[in-house]
């Protein structure tokens, strides 16, 4: 174990620790400062992880000092570090927004602490190296998100929160069942050990069905088409800052889990799961795109962009070639950042007009810089040339074409079609909100400067996606290469020697039929 074995735990421990600290009754300034410090520290550790894993090391941190297949380990490879960094960036902007937008009632009931717990759960899900621990991480994340969903108890929040909770509880129970089955079949829950044993077993119907069960669970978490019905209603009901993080990161946790499980762990029969993912992905992007075109409210439209982006990611995973994985990893960055930026923009837009509706007309006059930011993000979401979205979508489509199976070609067609519809929907927003002449009887409110600044910063990051497409794709390349050879991950976690299960103590020989 290297000297950096403490690092994979650091983002999780920092978030959790600051979350606990924030439960202490303190003045608002103190809480805001603590939240910002905690999130910045998490971000710093995430950057540290990215640097430490850049050369392909797999960092392993054993909880309580119990070695890999026996105890719970936290592992960080390139993919985990990448996701951890994206989540931390989005978290920082979320806390920024929450700090800029005082909300005495929700803050009294620990908005800031719950946000930190949410970040802790998200970081743990990205960095865990154990299937059951992944479930625990999901629960930490979900408990915090349930509280955040209903915090404030507006009728809309309670109604939508109920759907969200029921859906996620059902998915979580299924995850426990799948964990049990995986343990029953393979006798372990450690990702690396699962992968090793699944490989020893070869293609096996039981293992594949466990994989499909996991796929259903993660599809529900990631809001893939038939299981994502709760998303477009729930996210607009949330307070703006919280909604930003939910939209940008929570569905990506499901996508990350899919990526991890189907590139590292269950790799023996990729045909079944990839076909499913391709099908679900292509339907999801179209569903998201049509949803976008059908809505009239800022954050409802944007929630459907989240659905659509998950569809693209599932499409990338479903193609299954390293080239497609590379494009998906790059698209993950695009999607997280652009969703954060769009929700930050929507917050400012809603506050400036005092309504959730897009149809305000002529706001270009009052918010010129915001209009520029929105245009950039809209182009990124639709995937048009000068934006980072284009680069990533182009890579996805190319990967789909070069794979060449009929289903992949169909999915490429649906990707292009949904991009077109997305563009139409985004232009609709542009026309409705920014274009035209502002009716004089409609008021325009002042929005706090820090909220503006959050939207601009997030948009600057989106612009950075274009400028730094080279390094991002280099990282994505390395990640895809690492994911296509799971042996390196397995060796990093379990070491070079084969795992020996010691005999049971007390002289009882292990029963072998």
């Amino acid at each position, binding site marked *: 174990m290297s000297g950096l074995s403490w690092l994979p735990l650091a983002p999780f421990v920092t978030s959790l620790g600051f979350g*606990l600290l924030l439960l202490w009754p303190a003045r608002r300034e103190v809480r805001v400062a603590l939240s910002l410090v905690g999130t910045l520290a998490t971000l710093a550790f995430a950057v540290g992880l990215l640097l430490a894993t850049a050369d392909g090391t797999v960092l392993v941190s054993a909880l309580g*000092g119990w070695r890999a297949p026996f105890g719970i380990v936290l592992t960080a490879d390139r993919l985990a570090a990448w996701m951890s960094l994206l989540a931390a960036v989005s978290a920082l902007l979320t806390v920024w927004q929450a700090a800029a937008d005082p909300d005495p009632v929700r803050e009294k009931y620990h908005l800031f602490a719950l946000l930190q717990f949410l970040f802790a759960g998200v970081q743990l899900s990205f960095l865990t190296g154990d299937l059951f621990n992944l479930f625990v991480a999901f629960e930490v994340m979900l408990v915090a998100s349930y509280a955040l969903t209903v915090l404030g108890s507006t009728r809309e929040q309670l109604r939508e929160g109920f759907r969200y909770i029921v859906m996620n509880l059902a998915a979580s129970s299924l995850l426990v069942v799948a964990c049990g089955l995986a343990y029953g079949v393979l006798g372990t829950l450690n990702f690396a050990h699962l992968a090793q044993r699944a490989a020893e077993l070869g293609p096996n119907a039981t293992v594949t069905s466990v994989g499909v069960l996991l796929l259903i669970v993660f599809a529900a978490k990631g809001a893939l088409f038939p299981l994502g019905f709760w998303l477009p209603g729930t996210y607009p009901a949330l307070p703006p800052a919280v909604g930003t993080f939910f939209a940008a990161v929570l569905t990506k946790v499901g996508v990350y889990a899919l990526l991890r499980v189907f590139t590292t762990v269950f790799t023996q029969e990729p045909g079944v799961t990839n076909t499913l993912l391709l099908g679900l992905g292509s339907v999801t992007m179209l569903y998201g795109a049509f949803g976008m075109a059908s809505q009239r409210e800022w954050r409802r439209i944007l929630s459907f962009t989240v659905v659509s982006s998950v569809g693209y990611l599932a499409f990338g995973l479903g193609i299954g070639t390293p080239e497609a994985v590379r494009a998906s990893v790059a698209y993950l960055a695009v999607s997280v950042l652009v969703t954060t930026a769009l929700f930050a923009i929507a917050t400012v837009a809603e506050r400036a007009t005092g309504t959730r509706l897009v149809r305000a007309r002529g706001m270009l006059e009052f918010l010129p810089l915001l209009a520029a930011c929105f245009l950039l993000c809209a182009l990124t979401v639709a995937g048009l040339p000068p934006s980072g979205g284009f680069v990533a979508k182009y890579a996805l489509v190319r990967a789909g074409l070069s794979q060449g199976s009929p289903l992949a070609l169909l999915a490429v067609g649906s990707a292009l079609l949904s991009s077109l519809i997305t563009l139409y929907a985004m232009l609709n927003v542009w026309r409705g909100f920014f274009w035209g002449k502002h009716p004089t009887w409609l008021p325009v409110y002042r929005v706090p400067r820090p909220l503006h600044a959050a939207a601009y910063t997030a948009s600057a990051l989106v612009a950075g996606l274009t400028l730094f497409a080279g390094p991002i794709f280099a990282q994505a390349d390395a990640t895809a290469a690492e994911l296509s050879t799971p042996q390196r991950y397995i060796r990093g976690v379990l070491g070079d020697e084969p795992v020996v299960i010691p005999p049971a103590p007390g002289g009882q020989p292990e029963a072998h039929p």
Partner: protein
Amino acid sequence: MTPRRKKPAPVPVNGSSPTTAPLTDDPILRSVSRAVFALILLFAFLLLWRGHNAPGGGFIAGLMTVGALILHRIATGTSALRVDPLRLVPWGLALAFLTGLVPYLLGRPFLKSAYGYITTPLTGEFEWASALLFDFGVYLVVVGGGLAIAYALTDVDPQERVEGDE
């Protein structure tokens, strides 16, 4: 907008208020519950004590304690716990977290337990472990959370009306 709801009646310490009378007035239940309460608590503490190395632990001990306290509440209509149970949760969490954090900050793995042996004439050799503190944190969280849920459910007033019900 927070829906206005009637403030739930506070749990009376002497049980004299007519609205929150004991759920049952069964004298048998009341006299049996006293002994059973003590027995369950003793068993819960045993589970907590041996939990770090044998079947048991903070979680199950906490659940047993919650069971005992709910029984007390049902039999007598008063809470045996003098503090708001929800206040226990953050303290328990903090205790458990700090127990894990200390070895982490000292450069050992997170949650690594220190342990040793003490021999007293009364108990013989006993293995102590810092995991016991972690368990106690878990215990506090479970007691606080479980009781808060149970008390919230006993305080439900079916006649209650919330803004917008009609």
